[in-house]
Each structure stands twice: as structure tokens, then as C-alpha cells.
């Protein structure tokens, strides 16, 4: 593989030696970790236990076995020099469609929105295309864990936690039903025009109140179903209600997509009544509801920090400063890629922009690692560098949240992954063409 960084400059182009071993291979899946590895002499950003200068991280069978400064390295451990490097936990995108959406405008390549309003039983992982091009580019950006998430309807289905390395979705799936996704209805829909389109007169869509009521009814029915099963009553099976049991038992969170202040407020009221564990996703107006979110310790997954403000009067940096303002208000939050699989690779910038606009850098890092892991129920495995957690991390020249640094190597569950991706593959292939051309013209 060619060393991309500083491999050449425009003026010294002829000095390049390109690898000629291109064989159409874009990215190879590597086998599980087979030997203990120690990376020593690096600056280790544990996220949960501070920064260890000149630290060592040792991991075996995919799990971190020890971490600290001046560690004794057990015999038989392969030692890698991490001098001058930084080690960060792999970034986590709490809201993505990686693997289930390939080409935006090509409908058949998208498996995100199932038909119907209530689909709690659909799970993203079973539809994940392990060969998706976006997996490689996400990994190259430092995103090693992503929550692939269905959309549409009032209840979209289950997000699945994916570890972005494996031959199949089955290998990649860390948690098939990680969180239930609810789309909170819009209290201010665009004015309905019954005679607007070519289809002639149309039924008005259900009102906000009707949609909220439908959601409540669904939860009530699901609860009745759970109680009947628990009481050993004979009931006809319903796969949708069955899928709700872990939600109603409080084992997995309900991620509620809500941006407006009224939406967030109403969603919180609803969740408190339903007694479910709620996470707000979107949260454009979360700052207006901050006190209530703090009072009930409700976290927020921000989906658009690298964004324009939603209202003309808001500051140009209204979205950029949102994380800093929420932090100051004491609201717990994660930052997500926000725009689906195609741009999961932009996750670091979504967090980095918050730093430019007032958020402490370590908080920004938490927002794309441990916070996301905690809200989505996988903090026992990923999100920080701790003994017992998965060896899923990045070796970099600096913070992964800034483009001035580079990610040199990533490990996922202890596997030293192939850093090639489709974009680098095209680079190498067409640089070969450029080289051939330059030799002719020179």
C-alpha cells in the first residue's frame, strides 16, 4: 500500500513509486486476533480515565487486558512501537444507515424505511450489506462502531449496533435490537392542500393529536400483550408487540426523533407517562427544553451540529454552538453523523466543529465515544479504553476530530484492519494513469 501522506508533491511527481500490486481488492477482512499485542509509548486517550502519556495498551482475543504507563509486557506479546502516536477509542456513530443504504437516489439500494406506521420488529442488522463501500470510508474516518437505524413511520424499528469489521452482518452485529426508534409527529405540519396534486382530492393526513394517540394506543396494546404473556395467558402471537417487551421492561432505550421545542416537550411527557427510557434524537431546539432534560436526566443525540441554523434570526453558528450550550446547561449529549450512511465518515467533523465553537475538546470526544455508547447500551464493550472492553481503537497523529491530524491504523476487536477503502483504491488506480501520462508528456 502506498503511503499517501507526503508521498509526493505536485512538483516532484516523478519521484513516486506506485505499488503495482493492485488486484481489484478494495479492502480485506482480516481474521480474529490471534496473538496478544502491546502498543507502547503512545499517548493514550482513555476518555473515561484521562490521558496516559507514554502509555501502553495490551490486548488479546479482541479485549483490552491492561492499559497504563510502564506496564510489564507478558512474554509472547507482539510489541508495536507507538512512539509519538496517539491512541483513541474508535468513534461511535449513534445514528447511521450504514450498510442498509447504498446510493441515495437509487431506491432499490436502500433498505431503510419499511412500510407502515408500526415496525418495532424490524432490525437493521439483518439487512446490512457487509460489502457496502461506505463501511470502508467510515472506518478510514475513525468510525469503528455505528448504529444502523431504520426510518419511517411512527415506530421505525430497531437500531443495530455494528462493529465495522466482519465477513457478514452476523459477524459485525454487536446488538441486534439496540434501541427502538420512534418518530415523534410534527405538531406544525405544512398546511394540507387536499386538491394540490395530480392525484386529485386526497384524505387529509392524521392530525398531530391523532398520531400521538395512535402511538399511545400501540404502547398500551403492547403492554397488555406483555402482561398477558407474563401471566401465562394464551394469546395469539404478535411479532410487533413481542418486539416491544424489552422496551417496556426498560432493557433497551427508546430513541425519539424530535427537533422542535414542542415536539421534545411532548415526547418527554409521553415517555415519563410510559415509563420508558428515552433518548432524544435530533434535538435542534433542545436548548429551549434544557432544564427539563436535565431534571429527568434525558440524553440527546444531536444529528446536525455541522449545520445551518433552523431559523433566520438564529446565529449563523446556532448549530455549531449547540453542544457547548447544552454542555453548559448540564444536558448529556452525543453527536451523530446525522445524514445516514453516505456521510458517516463526516462524524469527526460534526464533533470537531463544536470545539471551534466553545465545547471543551474532551467533551467533544466523549460525544462521539462513551456518551454514544452509554445512551445506546453498549458502554460495557466500547466507547472508552478500559480493561475488559473491546480493543477497538485508532492510532493517530493527533485528535481524530481535526483534519490536521491523520488516522494511521485502526483496530477493531483486536484485529489490525486493512486501511484500504474504495476511495483510496480509486486514488491508487488513477494515480497510475496519471503517472503513465506524465511519463509520456515529460
Amino acid at each position, binding site marked *: 500500500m502506498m503511503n499517501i501522506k507526503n508521498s509526493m508533491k505536485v512538483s516532484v511527481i516523478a519521484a513516486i513509486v506506485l505499488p503495482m500490486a493492485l488486484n481489484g481488492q478494495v479492502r480485506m477482512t482480516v481474521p480474529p486476533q490471534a496473538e496478544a499485542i502491546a502498543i507502547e509509548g503512545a499517548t493514550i486517550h482513555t476518555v473515561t480515565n484521562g490521558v496516559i502519556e507514554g502509555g501502553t495498551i495490551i490486548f488479546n482475543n479482541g479485549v483490552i487486558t491492561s492499559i497504563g504507563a510502564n506496564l510489564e509486557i507478558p512474554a509472547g506479546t507482539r510489541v508495536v512501537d507507538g512512539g509519538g502516536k496517539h491512541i483513541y477509542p474508535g468513534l461511535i456513530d449513534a445514528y447511521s444507515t450504514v450498510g442498509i443504504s447504498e446510493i441515495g437516489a*437509487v431506491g432499490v439500494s436502500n433498505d431503510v424505511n419499511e412500510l407502515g406506521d408500526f415496525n418495532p420488529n424490524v432490525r437493521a442488522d439483518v439487512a446490512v450489506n457487509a460489502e457496502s*463501500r461506505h463501511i470502508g470510508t467510515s472506518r478510514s474516518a475513525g468510525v469503528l462502531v455505528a448504529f444502523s437505524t431504520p426510518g419511517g413511520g411512527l415506530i421505525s424499528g430497531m437500531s443495530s449496533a455494528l462493529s465495522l469489521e466482519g465477513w457478514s452482518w452476523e459477524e459485525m452485529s454487536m446488538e441486534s435490537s439496540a434501541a427502538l426508534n420512534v418518530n415523534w409527529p410534527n405538531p406544525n405540519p405544512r398546511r394540507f392542500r387536499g386538491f394540490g396534486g395530480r392525484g386529485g382530492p386526497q384524505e387529509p393526513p392524521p392530525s398531530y393529536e391523532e398520531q400521538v394517540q395512535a402511538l399511545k394506543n400501540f404502547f398500551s396494546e403492547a403492554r397488555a400483550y406483555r402482561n398477558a404473556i407474563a401471566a401465562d395467558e394464551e394469546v395469539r402471537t404478535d411479532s410487533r408487540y413481542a418486539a416491544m417487551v424489552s422496551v417496556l421492561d426498560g432493557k433497551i432505550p427508546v430513541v425519539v426523533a424530535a427537533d*422542535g421545542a414542542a415536539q421534545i416537550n411532548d415526547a418527554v411527557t409521553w415517555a415519563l407517562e410510559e415509563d420508558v427510557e428515552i433518548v432524544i434524537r435530533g434535538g435542534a*431546539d433542545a436548548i429551549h427544553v434544557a432544564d427539563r432534560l436535565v431534571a429527568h436526566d434525558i440524553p440527546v443525540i444531536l444529528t446536525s451540529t455541522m449545520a445551518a441554523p433552523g431559523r433566520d*434570526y438564529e446565529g*449563523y453558528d446556532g448549530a455549531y454552538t449547540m453542544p457547548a450550550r447544552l454542555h453548559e446547561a448540564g444536558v448529556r449529549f452525543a453527536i451523530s453523523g446525522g445524514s445516514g450512511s453516505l456521510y458517516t*465518515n463526516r462524524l469527526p467533523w460534526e464533533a470537531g466543529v463544536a470545539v471551534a465553537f466553545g465545547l471543551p475538546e474532551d467533551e467533544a470526544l466523549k460525544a462521539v465515544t462513551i456518551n454514544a455508547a452509554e445512551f445506546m447500551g453498549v458502554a460495557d464493550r466500547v466507547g472508552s479504553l478500559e480493561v475488559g472492553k473491546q480493543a477497538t481503537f485508532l492510532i493517530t497523529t493527533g485528535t481524530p*476530530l481535526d483534519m490536521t491530524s*491523520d488516522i494511521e491504523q485502526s483496530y477493531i476487536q483486536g484485529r489490525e484492519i486493512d486501511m484500504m477503502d474504495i476511495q483510496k483504491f480509486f486514488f491508487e488506480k488513477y494515480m497510475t494513469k496519471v503517472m503513465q501520462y506524465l511519463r509520456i508528456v515529460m
Partner: protein
Amino acid sequence: MRPRLHQTSLFGLSLTLLIAGGLNAQQATRTQPVEGIRDNGTGYHALTNVRVVQAPGKVLDNATIVIRDGIIKEVSRDGEAPAGARIWDLSGHTVYPGFIDAHADLGMDAVPEGGDVGPTHWNPQVRAWFSTTANLQDDSQRRAALRSQGFGTALAVPGQGIFRGTGSVVNLGDAGVRERVLVPDMIQAIGFQRSFELGGSYPNSTMGTTALMKQTLMDADWYIRAWDAYESSGRSFLPPETSEALGALESVVQGGQPVVFETSSEEEYLRAHAIASEFGVQAWYRGSGQEYRLIDVLRDRRDPLIVPLDFPDAPDVTDPEAALNATLQDLRHWYLAPTSPAQLADAGIPFAITADGMSSINDFLPNLRIAVARGLSSDDALAALTTTPARWLGLSRSHGTIEEGKIANLLVSEGDLFTQDAEIRDVWVQGRVYDITRPAQIDPRGTWRITSTDEWGFDAILTLEGPVNRLRGQLEVAAGSTTRFDGALVNISSAEAVAETGRIEVRFDGEELGYQGTVLLAGSVRGDEFFGWTSLPNGADPSFSGSREDEYEGPERGAVAMNVPELDLPFIRPMMEYGVSSIPEQPDAVVVRNATIWTMGPQGRMENADLLIQNGEVVEVGMNLDAPRGSVEIDGTDKHVTPGLIDPHIHSGVSSVNESGFAIVPEVRMGDVVTHNNVWMYRQLAGGLTTAMIKHGSANPIGGENVIVKMRWGALPDQIEMDTDTRTVKFALGENPKRRQNRYPDTRMGTQEIIRDHFLAARDYERDWRSWEENQEGIPPRRDMRMEAILDILNQELLISSHGYRADEFLALVRLAEEFDFRVQTLQHGIEAYKIAPELAQSGVAAVVWSDWGGFKMEAYDATAYNARVLMEAGVTTSLHSDNSEIASRMNWEAGKLLRTGLTEEQALSTVTIQSARAIAIDDRVGSLEPGKDGDFVVWNGNPLSQFTRPEQTWLDGRRYFSIDEDMELRERIKDERSRLIQAVLSSQNGNGPRAGGE
């Protein structure tokens, strides 16, 4: 050639006829025979005891107006009504000149089924041949609606299409069609909104509409010359085409006939004015209600301006979450739109007021009163409805004032017309009266003593008050009058008065009088005498009589109550969030000291350096520069300074983006549709962007001409356009241009062929012109904007900037251009540009690409973030672009992403500065900090390529257009204005009426 009406003589003739003939034209002056028995009133009237507002500011009290045969014969104070005249005692009333609507939609131009016939125009939106006189219809409902608001005369303006035909002045009486026209077909009407009923696919954008307007005016000029050439040759060659539409525009292009543009925004006014100026046509403007935003522009203009009174409803602020969504732009518009007429008057700008453009014509008088309450003087309001439109319509001799010899168009109002509760009773049109609201012929309000004369009898006091049509009051039986009803007090909650017959009818519960059931009471009023009878629940029907003791004295009528508070809202441009009172001033000299300066020129990146700007241009970058005394100094310690960023591909800042009506539309210009009401511009400035190319959309193989703008926030559109000779045109390849159904092309093959065919056509066009210029034989060729644009493309004066994704389509276009001996300037998007980097380098084509976009559609699937890197390695001029209003506000970070592909920092930044300027051929002015270039620079708080860095100041032309400090001040001002305006909305809604300015 089509025979045309001779405007001038007909105009004179029609007036003479009217003045001589009057209302009841006799057989001598009317062509239609009378069938049956003639119906001749005397036509002789005297309006007496009336207050007459003869003209704005000229009032006669207690006057008499004598009308005979439709003409005002006399207006005099205390005048005697002549014997023989019908007397109209109008004491308590005020008479005004009848209103004149200078832009009325009388709805006489419905599109015929099956479309227009005859040699019309190829484009169904061009109906200049349409005559409102020739198509005058029985539009009695619309006339009655206008009369109900006080109008007696109107310019009937056709409303279908873009060139809509001619407007005629008509009276709004109910005479037959032959007696309604005052001035036939005096003005051509043009509008920016096409009529979908007329069909046709082109134009479907504002710039397409503008191009069609220009081309049609040019064609009208050609049409004259073509027919002249044909006629003067003795018809020795084939005739030119016949076009009713172009023929009808002859006197417009020759300057004889005015044109009225219907505008729906401040921008449309500016666009219409630009077209009128370019073609030297006499222009009138139907305004938009946004004139208060252009007072400075309008101040010195004298073209007829006719403004509507369409005042907006208040934004929804009913709950805190709704209030959160109320924009300052909407709040300001709600508050200020009703002040627009007053602002025009205060600035001395001539204007007329029209009832056109309102959602309901019944809002006209209420809104007129709001305009008066919000500062328009009654005299100015009256002038805008009478003398001013009369002057413009050429009716000053006959209309607009109440004077002897003028036509008897009058408006009779009970009360001061410009105050609350005043009602128009009658409107007189050419000496004939039309009832508008029926006056109460009786007014039973007051205090009556009534007594019953039979054995049942009583003595009681009846009081009636409230509006005549909804009386209320009480009946109080005097103590001691009878034993039975002694002291009874009955409340009357509703009573009805029948005006024509002088009856009042009351019903009330009999309980107070000791009956079980309802008491019915009817009375006839004549003056102060009263006779009535009752029907009692016990079957008795006693009668009674009475007389009025006291007149009713209601609350005094006054000016319309202001129920919005007086707010001080300074003029800002644009009239929205972050608008400013003026563009920033330009200091003579500006010096940045001790900064890291990325010159992006030969000097490279310099540490601890100084930058000197004078008179808006870069003078020098160097160490410890001498700056003139009084220079504005910026401490650049720990700061970075770069040239202003450039984005060669955005779509914000224009009113429309795609002209997709035809596949080939290089005649349309984005420069025609720039808007300054664009908050993105401010945000882009805040992100360090100073220059951008706003591109036409991608629906066409050959799209429109792009416009290069500088982010001069606070300026008008023509000042936003960059002063450069560089012109570029949009091409589009791949999926988008073939997406439109039933329009060639459907394939990438066809896309290349339709481009080639038009290149060839332009060469043919050039040859035709050359041969005509040499021989002067035959029909002179016409100027074709589309062909001339393509010639400019072939001559590389209009540079190709082509949208596309795949390598194949780009390579084909590059080769096609080479076949015609020119060069494509730049490819844009270029997802696969890296695949043909060597070919682009060889042909000298610049590439404008994304940092990391891709995958969103099939042709974007082979995207790579290394695109720019490969292109630069091959020696292609390479720029980034956003194609996105939002991303254009953070192009430094887009460039920063390239660091991850191995570019150096300066290489990365060059893709949003100097290379961007080169890509669109404006590097002589911008893109680097070199002597002589524009003083456009950004001060950053760190390395501009870092995700952790933000811009602090953005300078453009040596003016500071953005700084984080000033931004904070603007936010405070916005917050303050929004909260005051939201309070104003709430207080107006707590008051009497839902509308701005109260009622």
C-alpha cells in the same frame, strides 16, 4: 401588416363624445336603435346640503352639486338647487371624486377553450395582441365590487400570460359595452407570472421570463424592419412571418405606448425597471406592497407606480413555540407594510393606489383606513385614488376632481371616508347613481315617550340605541301610570328597523309585564312621530303612539384607532434578520499587523507579516509595513489571514434556479434574478466566503448564463454582481438534463448531439448575418439571444462551466469543444474527473469538485475524496465547490478535509482561493493577496484548515462586512426587535381587530 388603431385620435374622439353625449345618449349620438318605449330620466340632479371634497385639500361645506346629463354643471356653497332638478338632500354626507383604479383586473381575458387562434405568437404566453376593448364583456359583478369600494373608473388590465395585451380605461357604470370605454388600449401589460392555462413549457423561471421579455421586444423591433423591407422591395421576396403579437408591440418599442409591469416583490420591481431602461420603454409599475423597502431607490423616480393595499396577517405567535418560529422578516413586514403608502408620500414619490392584488376586495376600504391610521394623510390617500391616476391615464380634464365641466363620477360617504365606520352610500358614475349601502331612511334611535290610548294603556319610555341594523334598548314603564305594569323595566336585546318602510319590529319576553310568553311590538316611525301596536300573549292587541323626546347621540366617529404601538424600526437592507442600515464604510487604509498571512500568491505563507489595503485594494504584504496615518489597524498576533474564500458553484441568492422549459437556454441570465433578501449571504460571509458563482440549474444540456457575485451584504442586486468581464454559462451532462420527460435528449448520446447541433446552428446564424450585412437583400435577420449566446460560447467569450459526474460525458464535451476549436473552461461536480485528469490537463480544462460528496446517486457512486489530489497531481487547475448554500459557509473546512489525502496546507487552501479564482477566470481580481487585487480577506483565530478554527472578521473591497463582535450586536438588535414586534402582535390581537394597524 396588421392594421393598428391610431391611439391618439381615438383617445381624443372618445372623450369628446362623452362630454357631448352624456349619460342618456340620444339617437343622434348612438348607433343602437331603441326598441320599445324609450327610457329617459331627466339626468338632472342636485345634491344639496353636502360637504364636498372637490380635490385633495379642497373642501366646500354645505354645498350643492348640480349634475346634468352626466356632467357636473355647478358646484357651489349654499347654492340653490335649480328648479327641475331632482333633489338629493345629502346633509350629513360627504362627497368625494369617484375613485380611479389604475390597475384593475376586470377578468375579461379568460383563456378560450382550445387556446388562441390566428397568427399569434409561437409562445402562448405572448398575447400582446389581446385587446381589453375588443374583448369587453359583461363583467357586472366585478364592476359592482369595485364600485362598492368607491371606484367609478378603472384601467382594465389583462392578466393572462407574460405579454398580456392592452389595457383600456373604462367607466364602471352599467351602461352597455359600447358606452363603457373611455380610452381604448392605451397601455401594454406585462407580468412576471406566466399563466399555466395558456400552456407551453417555456419559460418556467424568472430568468426565462425576463429573457422572453427582452427577446420579444427585440423581435417587435425586427418585425417592423422586416415588413418594411418586404413592402419597400415591392414584395419581391417571400414575406416575413405574420405575428399579431409583435405587431401589437410596435408602438411600445417605438416609445409611443407605455407598458405596465405587474410586480410581486421588490426584486421584480428592480428587474422590470432594468428591462424598461435597457429597451427605453415608458414603464408603469403595479407595485407589490414592498415599496417601503425601496424608498431610497424610488425617491427620484417619477414613473407611474400603482401600489396595492395587501397587508399581511400577523405571524402566529399564539404560543411560545409558535413565537419561536416567527421571523423578523415576517414580523417587520406585518408591521411596516401598512406604512408603505405613507412612506411613499413622505418621500414625495408619486403613487396611485389600486384595489388589485388583495385576497378580498372587501378589504380595500378597511386597509385604506389602516394606511391612513399608519401615517398616510387623507389628502394623499385621496390623490392616490383620484387626481394622480387621472393624470397618468390622461383623464385630468374629465376625472379626478369635482369641478364644473367634469364627468359626474362621485362617491357619497356617510362620515369621513378615511375614518372608522364611515360607509359609502352611493357611487355616481357618469351621472347615474348606484346604491352601495342603503341609507337608513329612518333612524328610530333615541328616547321615545309612548302611551297607550286604550283601556290597557300605559305610559312608558322606550330608548333605542346601537347600530341601526341591530338596535337595542329598553322599555321602562313609568311609575304610577298603571297599576299593572307599574315601574316594569324590559330590556330589549334586539330590534330590527326596516329602512324603506320606516318600521321597527321588537320582540321581548313578557315576563316583566306579567305575561307568560313573548310580546310582539311593531311601530311605524315618521320623523319624530311614532305609531305602534302590540300583540300580547293573552291575545290582546293594544295600540299606542308616541313622540321622540331625545335624539340618539352615539360615540363620535373618529380616526381609525391605532392598535399597534409606535415602534422605532430603523430602515435596514435586506429587510430581514441581520439586515444593515448601510453597507460598511471603506477606510482609506487598513493594515493587519503581525499575522500568519497566507497570500496564496508568489509570496507564499508568511509568519509575523503585515497586510496593507488601500482604497479597497491590496497594496502590499510584507514585514513591518509603513501604513498611512489614520489607517485602521488590526492586531493579527496569533491570527491567520487568508484571501476571502471563493465558491464557484452555489445556488443561493437567486429567485429561481432552473429554466427547464427548453433543453437549450443560454439566453437566460442568472444575473437577472439575483436577490439580496438572502440570509445565506450573511452566513457565508460569516464563514469567510467573499465571492461566489451562482449557477443556473442542471436541467439543460446548455443552461443559462451564471452570475459571479461578491457577498456585499446590505447592497441591492446590481451592486452584488461582481464587476468583471468574465462570463460563464452552465452546461449539464449526465442524469439531470435527460431526466425531463418528453424532451430531447433522453440519453447521454443525445445530450452531446443537441449541443453539437446548436453549435452548428450558431455558425449558420453567424453566416446569415454576415451575408445580409454584405448584400442587404431579403428579410433582415433578427437578433436571436440564444444564438448569440452560443456564438459567444464558440468564441470563448462565454466560458463553459459544465455540470456532470462521469468521465465519459466530460471527455465527450471536452472533445466536442476541441472540434469547434475552443476550450471548456471548467467542469463542475466532476465526481469522476480524476479518471480523466490527464486529458483535462492536456485540454486546459479546470476542475471544480467536492471534497467528500458522493454516493447520493448512481453517477456519483465512484466518488473519492482523493479526486482533487489526483487532479492536482496531473496539473489540472482544481477548485472545491459546495453546490450548497450551507456548505458554502464553511469552505475552509472543505479544504481542510483534503489534508487527509496528502495535500500540503497551502495546496489545500488553494482549492478555495486562488485555484477557485483561476477555475472561473477571475484570478485577475481575487483569490490571492497580491498588489492590485481586491481587498478581500479573512481573519481567523488559528489555522484556517483546522476543524477547531473559526473566522473572526471578513473584509471585502476593504470594507469589514463581518466581525464576530458586530454579529453579536446584530443579534441583540434582532432579539430586541423580535420581542417588541411579538408584543405588538399580541397587543393588536387583544384589541379590536386581527389586522395590522387596527380598525
